[in-house]
């Protein structure tokens, strides 16, 4: 399948050869001046405390819902098609998603300055993972990066994340990149490492890590047109293209795939796991079915509504073309 190019402003923050979790929280819903204010002023000034963080997230959601017109249209149209809700309800869900994404930024910044609060916010423990190598299949939903840190700090297994470098090959607005770099440094520090890049040597190291019986965490909802390998997945009658590199890594290493999401709230972080998908055969269908169930349960937490890509030959479905 030939990868298609998309305009930089529509590229997710962290797509990579396979699927990765974004250090900069996936796609932003803002552009130009709004992005500049968001990362230079809004986030650092407002989000040091929980109340300011919630104000920041609401402001970002409101601005994103109002100004990123093409993305809002794409998200609303998809929500209407998938769930049969009216456009007003769909717009409200989309705003909630923007809020979810901004809230993880705010939470991250707050916890950078208050490590004790972060420890109290994390779940006390994490359920045991299946024996042998495990690929934790996540989504850009809720609090994926903080969920990974919960796995690192509370889990009994050595879980690494696949994270795309914040380099020139990963286009994003300058202020957002600086925030992403700051956050990635924090994640490395708090997680005591645990990050693999996505270049060939790092993927080979990730293979070693799995072969040694450890675990990898990655978000699998990266649009399949910005990566080398993709799978066509049908969701609610729509044929979508998702990156499939991580699932290929799971096949190579005979890893069990465990779908998971992390949901933040003022009370703390909750991790939810789907039924493990045993190694053998192609795990794509079962994995995306389980991830689709999470999306259906928490549609107002999924950040990717505007960014999904229709499979080649199907009707174009991503915002901004």
């Amino acid at each position, binding site marked *: 399948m030939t990868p298609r190019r998309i305009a930089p402003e529509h590229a997710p923050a962290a797509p*990579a*050869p*396979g699927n990765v979790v974004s250090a900069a929280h996936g796609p932003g819903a803002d552009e130009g001046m709004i992005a500049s204010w968001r990362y230079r002023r809004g986030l650092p000034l407002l989000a040091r405390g929980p109340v300011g963080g919630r104000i920041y997230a609401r402001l970002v959601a409101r601005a994103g819902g109002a100004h990123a017109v093409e993305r809002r249209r794409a998200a609303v149209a998809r929500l209407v098609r998938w769930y049969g809700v009216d456009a007003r309800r769909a717009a409200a869900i989309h705003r909630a998603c923007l809020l979810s994404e901004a809230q993880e930024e705010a939470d991250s910044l707050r916890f950078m300055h208050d490590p004790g609060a972060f420890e109290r916010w994390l779940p006390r423990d994490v359920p045991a993972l299946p024996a042998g190598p495990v690929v934790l299949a996540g989504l850009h939903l809720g609090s994926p990066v903080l969920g990974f840190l919960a796995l690192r700090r509370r889990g009994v297994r050595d879980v690494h994340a696949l994270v795309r470098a914040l380099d020139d090959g990963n286009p994003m607005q300058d202020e957002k990149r600086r925030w992403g770099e700051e956050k990635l440094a924090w994640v490395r520090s708090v997680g005591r490492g645990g990050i693999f890049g*996505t*270049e*060939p*040597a*790092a*993927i*080979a*190291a*990730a*293979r*070693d890590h799995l*072969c040694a019986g450890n675990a990898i965490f990655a978000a699998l909802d990266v649009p399949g047109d910005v990566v*080398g*390998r993709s799978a066509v997945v049908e969701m609610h009658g729509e044929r979508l293209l998702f990156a499939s*590199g991580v699932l*290929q*890594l799971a096949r*190579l*290493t005979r890893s069990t795939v465990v779908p998971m999401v992390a949901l933040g709230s003022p009370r703390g972080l909750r991790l939810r796991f789907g039924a493990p998908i045993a190694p053998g055969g192609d795990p794509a269908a079962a994995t995306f079915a389980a991830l689709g169930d999470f999306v259906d349960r928490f549609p107002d937490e999924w950040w990717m509504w505007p960014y999904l890509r229709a499979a080649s030959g199907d009707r174009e479905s991503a915002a901004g073309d």
Partner: protein
Amino acid sequence: MTVLERVTKVVAAVMRLPEVGLSTEARLTSLGETDSLTLAEIATALDAEFAIHVPSDEMARAQSIADLARVVERVTAGR
């Protein structure tokens, strides 16, 4: 069949290239289309072919099929 011939066969299969005429000294990336998973796929195929585990750092240093064959010989010798 020599180690080099077996490694060539593995690389050709993974990269979906004709085995005949494949340069064993050329850079792997010049042989055909590669991406970030190709190296891991070759490593896995070599593991299966030779019943070994080829470590990632050795794989990352290998530039060509001949390099890979030397890696396999080293790992096999150290077993």
